[in-house]
């Protein structure tokens, strides 16, 4: 009888090109996603060594990180950003790489367009010079972020030499309550295991609560894997996955589709396979979460308070004190009393159609607080069009939200969408690091529903008590 294997082990072993003695195994990469910020030095490296892109057909590029979210066609006033975008355009042309450019109807955040174009498929190995590549693991793919040197390596060889990671299963028992979503699950997990709890591991999310998530929800969950330090996050493919992929532009077609499904059905972890570590989470204990500090593990229930510092260990205590100082909060502050100035609904974590629907449902019939500026940034042009077809944009506009063009926007503030010093933001993005959304800006991570509710009331508000109109 063949050995019991996990989802990760099946994909890993199917992609081993060589296992040279005394060296890291060499892994084949099925799909390489490329964006403007982490690729220019890699293409320069190819030019300097006279190398080509080995598999242009497995390499797909878009612009997302530093493009403005003003209406398309507005000139880019940041000349250094414009130069970086220009470099990607030139590199894609020179090396024969497909680019979904600024004016493309398929442009969007790289981790939004991969799935919606059907490029992301179960069983694949996927890399990108971006830590949130873990998003694609939602499809039962092995997807992880790499640095620029490794981007060059994949461009040149379509392979990566990788040390074998450890495996971890996060088993989420029970069901999520009404008003508690994938973002809360992700924040709850990071709050429990810490921002380095997953380091060195590929995490597989399992259990009833995970199976019950839509593909969008699974993407949110896997997206945040890196915030616990994990190399990648994965969810075994099932009927939900297949239904999402079917008919997408780059998905297998006709006879190929049947063959693909058959092979994908063999991917889920075998009964009795073992992991290096297993963690259990009780879904019933989860609630809407809000981060209060300067990393995604510093998280509290919406009904909770900013923690007291005196009971913490030395290093944690110092980190907490620094975080509270930066965030201008006091130990014991009630989360619901924290007032906000800005709201950002977007990012590769929460900018898909389902996220926008959830936020619009909250916003409908209400109006953004007079003290708040709120923006909605769809993850892609496709998401934007689909939302407009449903009239979501009108709900947002009527409620006083800005409705913008697609891109990474204020998740990392490489474009003009940034916080001013001291501004406090309820954000559906993934990182609340110091200065992440703008120098001196204070970020609180929340779900799309919680962000929309905070925009309307002007402070964090328990979505479970919301009066939907």
């Amino acid at each position: 009888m063949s050995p019991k294997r996990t989802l990760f082990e099946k994909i890993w072993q199917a992609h081993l090109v060589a296992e040279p003695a005394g060296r890291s195994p060499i892994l084949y990469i099925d799909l390489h996603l490329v964006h403007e910020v982490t690729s220019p030095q890699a293409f320069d490296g190819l030019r300097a060594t006279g190398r080509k892109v080995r598999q242009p057909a497995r390499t797909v590029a878009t612009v997302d990180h530093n493009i403005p979210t003003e209406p398309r066609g507005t000139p880019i006033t940041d000349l250094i950003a414009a130069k970086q975008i220009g470099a990607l355009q030139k590199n894609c042309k020179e090396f024969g790489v497909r680019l979904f450019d600024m004016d493309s109807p398929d442009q969007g955040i790289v981790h939004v367009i991969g799935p919606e174009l059907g490029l992301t498929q179960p069983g694949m190995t996927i890399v990108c010079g971006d830590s949130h590549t873990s998003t694609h693991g939602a499809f039962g793919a092995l997807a992880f972020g790499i640095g620029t040197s490794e981007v060059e390596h994949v461009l040149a060889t379509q392979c990566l030499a990788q040390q074998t990671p450890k495996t971890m299963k996060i088993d989420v028992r029970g069901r999520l309550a009404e008003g508690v979503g994938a973002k809360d699950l992700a924040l709850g997990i990071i709050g429990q295991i810490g921002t380095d709890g997953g380091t060195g591991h590929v995490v597989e999310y399992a259990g009833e609560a995970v199976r019950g998530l839509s593909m969008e929800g699974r993407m949110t969950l896997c997206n945040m894997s890196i915030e616990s330090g994990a190399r990648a996050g994965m969810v075994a493919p099932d009927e939900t996955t297949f239904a999402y992929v079917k008919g997408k532009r780059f998905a297998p077609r006709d006879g190929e589709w049947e063959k693909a499904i058959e092979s994908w059905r063999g991917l889920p972890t075998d009964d009795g396979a073992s992991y290096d570590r297993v963690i259990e989470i009780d879904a019933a204990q989860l609630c809407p979460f809000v981060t209060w500090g300067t990393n995604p593990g510093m998280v509290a229930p919406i009904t909770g308070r900013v923690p007291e510092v005196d009971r913490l260990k030395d290093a944690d205590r110092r980190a907490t004190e620094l975080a509270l100082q930066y965030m201008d909060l006091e130990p014991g502050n009630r989360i619901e009393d924290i007032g906000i100035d800005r709201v950002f609904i977007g990012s590769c974590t929460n900018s898909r159609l389902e996220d926008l629907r959830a936020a619009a449902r909250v916003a409908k019939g209400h109006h953004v607080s007079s003290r708040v500026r709120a923006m909605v940034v769809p993850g892609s042009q496709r998401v934007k069009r689909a939302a407009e077809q449903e009239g979501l944009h009108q709900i947002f506009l009527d409620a006083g939200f800005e409705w913008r063009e697609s891109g990474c926007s204020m998740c990392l503030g490489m474009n003009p969408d940034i916080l001013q010093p001291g501004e406090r933001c309820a954000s559906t993005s993934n990182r609340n690091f110091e200065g992440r959304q703008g120098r001196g800006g204070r970020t609180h991570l929340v779900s799309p529903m919680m962000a929309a509710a905070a925009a309307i009331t002007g402070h964090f508000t328990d979505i479970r008590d919301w009066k939907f109109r």
Partner: protein
Amino acid sequence: MKPFRTHRGLVAPLDRVNVDTDQIIPKQFLKRIERTGFGQFLFYDWRFDADGKKNADFVLDQPRYKGASILVAEKNFGCGSSREHAVWALADFGFRAVISSSFADIFANNGTKNGFLTIQLSENEVAELLRRAREVAGYELTVDLEQCEVSDGHGFRAEFPIDGFVRHCLLNGLDDIGLTLQHEQEIAAYEAHHPALQSA
């Protein structure tokens, strides 16, 4: 890549946990398309105030740590964004190695591609090094990659773990794209039976 064998240098203590790559090199400096020149922006928001004036209190700008080439910091160094610019900035500033009790995976990977060492010691050892670097003027350490050992010549000596192949590449300054391309036949054989993507 520049080989790393042994290095002796001045030690700077950075008393922080979870130093993320957004702190090491803030996003406004990621728009450059070169690999060089990032050192001036290292820890920018900690080293400079909002008007661009230097914060003389920050550890790296204290005269006693000028020229430091080994950084010691608390756990989970390099977490967050995959930006290799973080390693480029540290190296360009003059650092050859960081010592911590744990590192984020992508940061550590990026280090090895640039001949930059991430040295993992125990929390107690890191705490001791932070103490010595604060208390002893001109505190220096020797990093010996051949022996996988860090020592100060004054009673501190600790071994560190490192993957054998990574160590081999660092010691010899090997270009790992070249190493992978030695397997051209195996790659081609793999591709020959591996299904192509739908092209459109």
